C-alpha cells in the first residue's frame, strides 16, 4: 500500500529478460500476484459481481416475500424439520435477509459503476476541451469546477433528491454529476502537458482535425490516472449511496439495497436484531475495501515512475 513514494523500491521492480516482449496483461498479472492483497480484492469483487449479475438465479427466496409469522428470525435458526430456511435471518416483515442482500449487490454495484461512468465521461470530456482549447472555455469550466469543489456536494445531492424524489435514475444522475470535477481537473492537466508534445505536433502537421487529435492522440495518454481515480471513486460512490439509502433518499423501499437494510436495522437495534445491521455493513465494507486496495495497486502499477525503474 502507498508504495508510490519510493519509486525504486526493489520488491516492485519487475525483473524480466529485456529481450522478451512482455504484454501489458502479463505484466499486470505478474505484478498483481506479487502484491498479494489485490488478488483477494479481485476475488471479493468477482463474487459481488457474480451476485449482482445472477442474483435472481442464486437467491434462495423472493426478496420481497413477507412472512409475518417468522419475522425477525435469527440467523441459522433451524425449523422443526431441522432445515435452516433463513441462513442470515429475516427482517421485521419476515423477508429473507440473504436474498435481499444478494439482490442488494446489484443496486450497489450498478449505482457505483454507472455514476462513476457518468461523472467520468462528463468530466473527461470537459477537461479535455478545457485543456486543449484553453481561453474562455477553460476559464468557465474550471470556475464552475472550483465552485462545486468548494462545497460539500452531498448536501446539494440531498436537496436535489428531496425535490425530485428518490429513484435509481435520479440517484445515479446526481451522484454522477457530483463526481465530474475530479476527472475534469486531471484530464485538463494531462491535456495541457500533452498538447505541446511532439507527437501531437506531428499529428497536427499531417492535417489531423482537432477531434482526431483529442480522441486518438491525447485521450489515450491521459487515461491511466483517470482509471485509477475511477476505481477509488466507485468505492466512494457506493458509500454515498449507502448513506443516502440510510437517510431514505436512495431507491424506493421495495427495492432491496444494502443501505436500505441498514436503515431498517436502526429501528430493530434495541430489540437485539443484530444481523440486520451486521451483514449488509460487512458487504459494503468488503466491496469498498476491495476497490480501495485494487485502486492502490492500480495506481502503483500504472504510475510511470514505477515502470521506468524496471
Amino acid at each position: 500500500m502507498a508504495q508510490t513514494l519510493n519509486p525504486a523500491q526493489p520488491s516492485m521492480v519487475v525483473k524480466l529478460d529485456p529481450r522478451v516482449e512482455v504484454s501489458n496483461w502479463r505484466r499486470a498479472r505478474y505484478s498483481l500476484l506479487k502484491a498479494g492483497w489485490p488478488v483477494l480484492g479481485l476475488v471479493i469483487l468477482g463474487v459481488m459481481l457474480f451476485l449482482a449479475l445472477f442474483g435472481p438465479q442464486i437467491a434462495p427466496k423472493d426478496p420481497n416475500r413477507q412472512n409475518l409469522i417468522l419475522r425477525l428470525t435469527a440467523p441459522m435458526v433451524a425449523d422443526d424439520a431441522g432445515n435452516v430456511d433463513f441462513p442470515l435471518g429475516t427482517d421485521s416483515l419476515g423477508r429473507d435477509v440473504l436474498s435481499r442482500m444478494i439482490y442488494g449487490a446489484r443496486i450497489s454495484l450498478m449505482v457505483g459503476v454507472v455514476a462513476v461512468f457518468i461523472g467520468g465521461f462528463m468530466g473527461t470530456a470537459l477537461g479535455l476541451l478545457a485543456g486543449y482549447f484553453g481561453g474562455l472555455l477553460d476559464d468557465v469550466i474550471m470556475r464552475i469546477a472550483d465552485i462545486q469543489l468548494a462545497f460539500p456536494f452531498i448536501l446539494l445531492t440531498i436537496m436535489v433528491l428531496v425535490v425530485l424524489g428518490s429513484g435509481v435514475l435520479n440517484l445515479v444522475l446526481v451522484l454522477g454529476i457530483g463526481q465530474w470535477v475530479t476527472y475534469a481537473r486531471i484530464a485538463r492537466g494531462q491535456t495541457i502537458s500533452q498538447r505541446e508534445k511532439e507527437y501531437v505536433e506531428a499529428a497536427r502537421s499531417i492535417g489531423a482535425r482537432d477531434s482526431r487529435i483529442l480522441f486518438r492522440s491525447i485521450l489515450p495518454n491521459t487515461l491511466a490516472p483517470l482509471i485509477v481515480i475511477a476505481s477509488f471513486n466507485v468505492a466512494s460512490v457506493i458509500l454515498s449511496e449507502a448513506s443516502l439509502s440510510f437517510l431514505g433518499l436512495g431507491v424506493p423501499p421495495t427495492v432491496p439495497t444494502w443501505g436500505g437494510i441498514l436503515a431498517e436495522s436502526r429501528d430493530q437495534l434495541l430489540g437485539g436484531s443484530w444481523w440486520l445491521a451486521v451483514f449488509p455493513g460487512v458487504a459494503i465494507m468488503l466491496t469498498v475495501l476491495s476497490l480501495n486496495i485494487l485502486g492502490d495497486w492500480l495506481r502503483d502499477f500504472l504510475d510511470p515512475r514505477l515502470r521506468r525503474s524496471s
Partner: protein
Amino acid sequence: MSAYIIRRLLQSILVLLGVTLLSFLTLHLAGDPTYLYVSERASEEEIVMTRQRLGFDRPLHEQYLGFLGRMAQGDLGLSLRARKPALGLVLERLPATIELTLFAMLFSTALAIPIGIISALKRGTRVDGGIMLIAMLGQSIPGFWLGIMLILFVGLELRWLPISGHIPVIEPLLEGDFSKALTNVPDAFVHLIMPGLTVGVFSLSRNARLVRSSMLEVLSLEYITTARAKGLQERLVVLRHAFRNALIPVVTLLGLEFGFLLSGVVVAETVFSWPGVGRLVFNAINQRDIPLVQAAVVLFAFLFVGLNLLVDLIYAQLDPRIRLS
C-alpha cells in the same frame, strides 16, 4: 497580502452565489415548486394563492433576486411543518452540531498525526502494515455503520458508553454560564465519543495515511540527511525538522475537512439521535419540508465557505509561498 485577501474574498462570494443559485434552481427542477409547498389535498384556489404568495408566478431571475434579497435579511422562508422561520430552527440546533464536528475534527487530527509518524518511522514493518491495513479499513466502512456497530456492541452489549443523549457545552457558553459549561465537559465528552468516532473515522484513517506518506517524503529530503550528518539526535530530526513540514498537507486540508465532516454529521446524528442540524435535516427530508432543508444547506454553505476563507488567510499569513503563487 491585501491582493490575496481581495482575490480570496471575491472567490468566496462567487462560490456562495453559485451555491445559492444551485439550491434555488434545485427547487425548480421538478417543474412548478408550488406543489412542494402545499399538501396533496390542496384545492386549486389554495395552489394559486400559494403560488402568488411565494412569488413562483414571477420570472425566474426576479425570483432569484428576491431569494437573495430575503437571504441578506436572514429570511430563508418558513418551515412547512413548524410554521416558524427555517433559519431560526436551524440555528437553534447548530451548537450541538458544531460540538460534534469540532470534536470529530480534533480527535481525528490529534490521533492521525502520531499514528502516521509511527507508521512512517516503522516503515515496512508489521506495525506499519497493521496500521495501514486498519487505516484502509477505516476508509472503507460507512461511518454510520460503524456507529450502529458501536451502539450494538459498546453501548448495548458492553454498556460502556451511552448510546444517545447530548450534554450541551457551547449553549451554556453562549448564555454566559461559564461554570455550567465547565461542569458539563466530562459528561459531554463521554456522550461525544461514539458519535465523534462515527463522524471522524474516515478522516482519521485518511489523515493517518496522509501524514505517513508526507512524513516519508520529507524524511527522504536532503536537509534531513544534512541534519543527520551533523550528528543531530534522531528524535530531534523527526520532531523538529521533519514533523513540521510533514504537517503542511494535513493543515491545508483542515478547512475542507470541516465541511467534509459536516456532511457526515447528517447520518451520524440520525444514528445517535443527536439533537443537531443533521437530525433536523433528516426529519425535514422525511416530512418533505423543503424550506427547512434549503435553509440548512445554505447555512452549511456559508459556514463552509467562511471557514475555508479563514483557514486560507491564516495559512497565507503563515506561509508566504501560498499567497505569492
